[in-house]
């Protein structure tokens, strides 16, 4: 016991040195990330790629059981749900009829015009492995990665609407930044007024619309689709409907159910514009001309 106490004292200075070295090393990692973030982010993707799939065997059953419990709880409202579903089904039948007619009409018109549908929008389907694990980030990890041909920047959709875009591709996994994430910015087009705007995530379920030129022309219920501006994101993907938030801001009620994502389609879009660097300062193009002219 006396030895024990002595060893504590003996190791005191060495321990302090060790703590110092660890702190300096951590600060160095942080600084490197701040200076050259793409490289460190690639390293992050690599770590996630190693760590998360090793849990895959455990993730699936636990998630399954949790969902089972949640489903079981919903049995209590079975009767109410049933009548709701019946009513909805009735409405859907009418819509189905309309959709079938439109499909036939569409096929006829396409045939008349000799249009061939763009084959570049095929997709890869992935299963959601994990969420971001933090209340401040909105992203999910898919079990498809570089080995399945996933490329950074491709859009991800659930069956109906846009969910987000790929950001960070590992060998076996890839991360989808959801539209609700605070760093998500998607150029959108609001139909029928045809106005262009930016859908900016703010960590809420219904992201707000920003940079809208004439808000008075936009009504709640208008359709929102991606506009393809800047040519980094494919146009005409369904996003959702305009809604008026409690804070009187125009928001988008997403078509995709981002609270219950299970399978995601990653669209093979060919972005014409590649994002390689953080980007320079945006100045009016004629600024230089004016300066030279004077």
């Amino acid at each position, binding site marked *: 016991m006396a030895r024990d106490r002595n060893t504590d004292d003996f190791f005191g200075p060495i321990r302090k040195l060790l703590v110092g070295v660890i702190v300096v090393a951590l600060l160095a990692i942080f600084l490197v990330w701040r200076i050259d973030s793409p490289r460190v982010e690639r390293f992050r993707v690599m770590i996630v790629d190693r760590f998360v799939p090793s849990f895959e065997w455990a993730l699936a059953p636990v998630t399954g059981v949790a969902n089972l419990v949640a489903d079981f709880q919903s049995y209590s409202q079975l009767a109410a749900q049933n009548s709701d579903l019946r009513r909805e089904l009735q409405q859907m039948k009418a819509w189905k009829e309309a959709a079938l007619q439109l499909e036939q009409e569409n096929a006829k018109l396409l045939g008349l015009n000799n249009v061939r549908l763009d084959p570049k929008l095929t997709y890869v389907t992935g299963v959601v492995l994990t969420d971001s694990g933090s209340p401040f980030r909105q992203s999910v990890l898919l079990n498809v990665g570089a080995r399945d041909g996933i490329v950074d920047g491709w859009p991800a959709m659930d069956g109906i609407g846009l969910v987000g875009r790929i950001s960070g591709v590992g060998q076996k996994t890839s991360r989808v930044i959801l539209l609700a994430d605070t760093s998500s910015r998607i150029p959108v087009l609001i139909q029928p007024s045809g106005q262009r705007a930016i859908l900016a995530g703010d960590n809420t379920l219904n992201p707000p619309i920003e940079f809208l030129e004439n808000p008075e022309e936009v009504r709640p219920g208008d359709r929102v689709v991606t506009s393809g501006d800047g040519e980094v994101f494919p146009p005409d993907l369904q996003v959702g409907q305009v809604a008026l938030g409690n804070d009187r801001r125009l928001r988008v009620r997403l078509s995709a159910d981002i*609270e219950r994502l299970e399978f995601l389609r990653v669209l093979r879009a060919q972005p014409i514009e590649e994002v390689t660097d953080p980007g320079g300062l945006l100045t009016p193009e004629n600024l230089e001309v004016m300066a030279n002219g004077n």
Partner: protein
Amino acid sequence: MATDLQSRVWFGICIYLVASTALIYVALLPINMGPASWAGPDWLLLLALVVVIRRPKYAPVLAIALVFLLADFIFQRPPALWTVLVVWLTELLRKRAPGFRSMPFSVEWTTVAGMILAVFAVNRLFLAILIMPLPPLGLVVMQAVATALAYPIVSVLSRLVMGLRRTSVGELDARGQRL
């Protein structure tokens, strides 16, 4: 005897590492997806604090640094910033850990709670100084307060699950070693 003590410490470290990995894994489960309007406590931080105060030897600084660095990378946080703050916090507490034994639990809780709030504030300050995207203030405050409030819960749980009792001054274990 020395090897026996060594192996017990290694066992303790292993338990800490396994418990931390389990917490990371639970946080990653895709059960409640979508933006939350509330934020729960940071269980990983609480576990580290409780172990450092109860049995400093079970959570060596290297283990804490590795666990939090892994968490930083996996939870999409700025790497190493939160880790540095946690290492600093645990080193402060490690120094005071023997002192807590002679104090009532309420004093320990208040001290730890103050430090938790401080470390959240310093983290946000750093992010602001380095012009990085700040998470929503409301959620961060909620998480900091929840973490401070949840300390007794983790303290009790660590006793029930991991067998980390609050020790009193000069208490020895079954083999007469200092705890």
